[in-house]
């Protein structure tokens, strides 16, 4: 399994089948097994625990995930900045104000855009037999099937929801490439200056 480029012979074997590839795979496998052995085994007998897993799977879309990340960031990231004693007090206060502003601006736009795009994908990916609010099947048109994939069989409802969440999230990321400049940056600058003022600093910050 060799190719020829000029005077060079190039092996076409996949890297995983080379001795180094095999050794790396074996090493990663044994590390994985060691970690797995160290983890406790558990049978979830309580109905409440199983329901919690089901609810997380059903209701935590990338939008809610972004909201959770943002809410925890307000406490954790601002707290880490507050404890950063390797910079002077003024820099520390400014960095706290900027971090809080960045987190608030990013979370608000990130959550809203993801939620809106996931809802839109949901509305434009009707499958055959999908029932409307009146309980009757929705007539499929070119528009309301715009995001529907072509599958031989009807996909499982949970898997289809995961697909719609994923596609909505990817579209939201594309939209946010622009809103990052149009909304996040000016909002971060505005909030940083507001927080800095409240903290007794009157530095004009740029984003």
């Amino acid at each position, binding site marked *: 399994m060799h190719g020829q480029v000029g005077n060079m012979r190039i092996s076409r074997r996949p890297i995983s089948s080379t001795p180094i590839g095999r050794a790396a795979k074996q090493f990663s496998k044994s590390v*994985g097994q060691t*970690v*797995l*052995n160290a*983890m*406790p*085994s*558990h*049978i*979830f*007998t309580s109905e409440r625990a*199983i329901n*919690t*897993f*089901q609810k*997380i*799977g*059903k209701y*935590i879309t*990338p939008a809610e*995930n972004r909201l*959770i*990340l943002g809410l*925890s*960031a307000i406490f*954790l*990231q601002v707290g*880490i*900045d507050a404890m*950063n*004693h*390797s*910079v002077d007090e003024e*820099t520390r206060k400014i*960095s706290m104000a900027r*971090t809080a502003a960045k987190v608030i601006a990013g979370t608000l736009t990130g959550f809203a855009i993801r939620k809106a795009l996931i809802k839109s994908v949901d509305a434009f990916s009707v499958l055959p037999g999908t029932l409307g609010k009146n309980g009757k099947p929705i007539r499929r048109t070119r528009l309301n099937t715009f*995001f*529907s*994939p*072509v*599958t031989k069989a009807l*996909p*499982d409802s*949970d*898997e*289809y929801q*995961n*697909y719609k*969440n*994923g*596609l909505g*999230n*990817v579209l939201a*990321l*594309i939209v*946010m*490439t622009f809103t*990052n*400049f149009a909304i996040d*940056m000016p909002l971060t600058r505005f909030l940083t200056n507001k927080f800095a003022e409240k903290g007794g600093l009157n530095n004009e910050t740029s984003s």
Partner: protein
Amino acid sequence: MKPLHRLASEFFMDIKNSMMRSFGEDPGKMLLHTGTLGWILSSLAQVTAVVFNDKIPKKQKTFLIPQEIADAAINIGSFYIFTNSFTKLANKMVSTGKWRTPAIDAFLKKYDLKKHIGSIDFNIKELANFDEIRPAYKAIASGNAIAASTIGSIISCNIVTPVLRNKYAAHKQKVAIARMEAKENAAIQSPKGVSMATFIRNAQYRPRSDMKI
């Protein structure tokens, strides 16, 4: 040759089908991939903002652009490593049967598979009669992957990245201040046998007010 609109339509269909295959089954993987893509896009935006900012002098850009790229590498690297590890481990815990419901336990017992629990090569989803247990398995698998991915993201984005970034920024600030001071103190000479950096550092030493004794 196919018309352009046909090619675009086929390309869009391929994207949708490949997303259906990869994100449908594993929502944890979807959060990891889209999260990493999000970091890459926002880092690109930050670097672009510096590159096209006319108010920043060219000399400063040569420092700020690599700094933004280093910041992006920390963000993307820590996000991918932590979130991926958490999601993979959580998925393995369920697929190897280490975390299971009584229904899965009964299924493994029925087919005498309990001896394989916790073996890295064992995967409940790949068993021939998996359909028998599919609803019970899915009841915990999706939620578990999403919870693991969210916890991994919180650790990487809200703890590891800010700590590393603060250390890096503090180091950069110190280097920049030392450079500015070196210019100001160019006329001063350090005593024989003492380096200029040590001499300036000793001359500027102030005890910290929050130092514990």
